[in-house]
């Protein structure tokens, strides 16, 4: 059970406090409701580039990291399709340093051409390190535009192309900040060894005076229902063929999201999962085989991906995956198998709830989803699912017309 208190400042900032007296630390987690889905299709990668600039100094504080480190703290951030999330951890007695730093960069940034230039280079190196240099690194750059034709999820958070990052201007940066980085577009979680009184007082002191802004979110198209199977083939300098199949799921807030999550576990989580057991262990076709959800707020994807053994054709691999899926959809699901994935989910949730930073992030995210108490309710949401739910959802999910297939093939040498 994660206890919390919610309050909202006059400027619209949503605040959640969670007391954990077993730690000597305190965490500030600030979630901004902006991700790459709000980007213009010709200026992608911007939300993530902007995240880097948030560490380049703010209006009253030339350097973000140094005062934080001096107070014994550490911080980082991540950007996704949906959100940009900043977090910092400090020894609890020093938490005011965190309030000071985090509120100043919400107030205004130090917009510098030099910082923008350097961070563009850093992000371009990040692009290479993660997406271009490693084997199979560009799979998502190929898969997303196949699975999505309209929705902005069709480009990855890092950006569609390096040129988009190169072309970003200081004007873009200013406009983006003004629109999205305001108290009325943020959720602040204060978690750790700090009283509610202290947390409230510090929040009022440092965040209270920051004015609300007009925050306009661009309208974007939802992905239309996919009506026929899609296939793309690429060749690359890799040792093994990789097969990826992506199926559109329900949005994160849909009740069937939890059902879909359990389906992905039944198929792909652990050695007893159906796909792994059938196609890695029994019938040895793949050397690795996974199944997972992207977990986005709008309709996301269930992804099955596997690397084929050298002697196996990609067509055979695909046929055998489809056999497993057909069997899953047509035959009744044993109760014990459902109970198994429920138990695994409970283990995962309990382990994830260890540590004050994890709890803070989860509180912020559930608040964004519209129900903070999801942090405590999700175990029950999973436990209430029946085998009929599984079959019903699986039947629609695994329709061939709902599937995008990427054949990522090893280039033949000689």
């Amino acid at each position, binding site marked *: 059970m994660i206890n919390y208190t919610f309050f909202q400042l006059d400027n619209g900032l949503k605040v959640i406090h969670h007391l954990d007296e077993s*730690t*000597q*630390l305190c965490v500030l987690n600030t979630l901004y409701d902006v991700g790459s889905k709000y980007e213009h299709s010709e200026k992608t990668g911007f939300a993530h580039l902007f995240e880097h600039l948030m560490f380049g100094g703010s*209006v*009253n*504080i030339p350097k973000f*990291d*140094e*005062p934080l*480190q*001096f107070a*014994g703290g*550490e911080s980082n951030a991540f950007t996704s399709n949906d959100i940009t999330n900043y977090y910092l*951890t*400090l*020894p609890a*007695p*020093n938490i*005011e*340093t965190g309030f*000071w730093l985090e509120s100043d960069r919400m*107030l205004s940034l130090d917009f510098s051409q030099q910082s923008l*230039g*350097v961070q563009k*280079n*850093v992000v371009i*190196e990040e692009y*290479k*390190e993660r997406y271009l*240099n*490693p*084997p199979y690194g560009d799979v998502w750059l190929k898969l997303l535009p196949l699975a999505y034709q309209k929705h902005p999820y069709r480009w990855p958070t890092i950006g569609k192309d390096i040129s988009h990052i190169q072309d970003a201007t200081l004007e873009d940066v200013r406009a983006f900040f003004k629109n999205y980085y305001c108290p009325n577009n943020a959720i602040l979680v204060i978690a750790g060894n700090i009283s509610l009184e202290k947390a409230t007082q510090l929040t009022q*002191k*440092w965040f209270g*005076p920051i004015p609300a802004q007009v925050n306009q979110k661009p309208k974007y198209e939802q992905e239309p229902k996919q009506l026929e199977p899609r296939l793309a083939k690429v060749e690359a*300098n*890799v*040792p*093994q063929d990789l097969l990826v199949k992506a199926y559109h799921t329900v949005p994160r807030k849909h009740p069937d999201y939890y059902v879909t999550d359990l389906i992905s576990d039944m198929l792909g989580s*652990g*050695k*007893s*999962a159906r796909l792994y*057991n059938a196609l*890695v*262990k029994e019938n*040895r076709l793949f*050397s*690795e085989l996974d199944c997972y959800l992207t977990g986005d707020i709008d309709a996301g994807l269930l992804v099955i991906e596997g*690397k084929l*053994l050298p002697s196996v054709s990609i067509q055979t691999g695909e046929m055998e995956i489809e056999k497993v899926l057909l069997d899953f959809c047509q035959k009744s699901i044993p109760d014990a198998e459902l*109970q*198994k994935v429920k*138990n695994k989910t*409970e*283990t995962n949730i*309990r*382990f994830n709830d*260890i540590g*004050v930073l994890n709890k803070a992030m989860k509180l912020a995210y559930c608040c964004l989803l519209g129900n903070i108490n999801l942090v405590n309710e999700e175990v029950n949401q999973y436990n209430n699912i029946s085998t009929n739910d599984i079959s019903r959802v699986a039947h629609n999910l695994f329709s061939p017309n709902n599937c995008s297939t990427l054949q990522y093939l090893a280039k033949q040498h000689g």
Partner: protein
Amino acid sequence: MDNLNRTIAPKSSIIANMNFLHGSSYTTQNNIPFHYLHVAESNVLKIDFVFNAGMRNQLFNGQATATGSMLTEGTSKYSSKELADKLDAFGAYLQSKTNVDDAQLTLYCLPKFLPQVMEYVIAVLTDCSFPEKELDTYKTNAIQRFSVNQQRNSFLNRRAFYSSIFGKNNAYGSAVNQEDYANISRETVSTFYQNNILPGIKYVMISGEATGVVISQLESFLVNLSSSPSPSKEVVLTGNIPEKIILENPHSVQSAVRIGRKLFGRKHPDFKKMQVLNMALGGFFGSRLMKNIREEKGLTYGIYSAMESYLDAGSFYIETEINNELRDTGVTEILKEIADLRENPIGADELNLVKNYLLGSFLRSIDGPFSLADRYKMILDYGFTYDYYTEFVETIRAISAFEIQLLANQYLQEKDLTTIIVGRK
């Protein structure tokens, strides 16, 4: 708009409260060292079963890791599938990890399912059968993973580095190859199991919701284990002749760079002090290397330095993946930063910042049941007491700029450093 002076930092001070939760131990009736660390309301359990079955005890490359991976692949009573089904049914995870100095099997589970899953854990630790078919699957898939890894510059770099500084013919420096995997047989793994797992467990450690009830449940299963662990074998190091190796990977858009040397492990009296130096050079986001090479020059997404400790040696290195065209600039700048530490004392403000950051990191490292268990495990593995951490904090507080400069001169001379670069010219 507000009367706050936002230009002045709030007051802060670092008090590392050393009254953190310590682990406790006793010896079970059948003579197994048993360690526990109970954190109330943590609701989860992590149990480590530790054996002298690390790579240092192996006779062939890949033998220890293969044995570890095969532990859950079948016993005389349960097939691989049955084991997976049973453990998964109770939402438990059983993971094996083979290190250079030891090996461990770790169980993650909810307290309510401990009695149900322990039967299978005991089977794995006493009765492995190493089915031919499962071993063959392991070998095939390991070879596939290896061929993918061979396209990773950082992977190739790391292998070349350890072989260079430790020599190739010992557990610290040897690198597994495709032929090593191919040569593993049922006999290889079952011999290793008989010689290094069956004779006895080194110790058991439980952390999380380790109540009295849970501990006695666990202990009732431990009577099935033996308690005379095989001795840990000696590691004979060669190598450590500084060299520069450049490996070509024509498909690269970046180069992996590693510069470093063989150094000492935690048992050496200078280890703690060197941690301060390492932190200043490349140990955190505000380090000299990160500031210069990422934040000023934008040459890389990340660069860091690290000290790794094994029981009988250690290493120090700087690692980065860097823009191909500018990698020589990167190497020059790395060497410049090291030279600066040798030639000039670190400034008072910077030293203070590094000290505070290290103390803050220490606080983060004692947060939560599993971090606390890790701190306990480290002192057990090295034969230290909790005084190690008190001394660590005292060392950080006391170290001077002069001492750091001395260390840099003693341990970070350019002539002692090995450089490995993997990428495209």
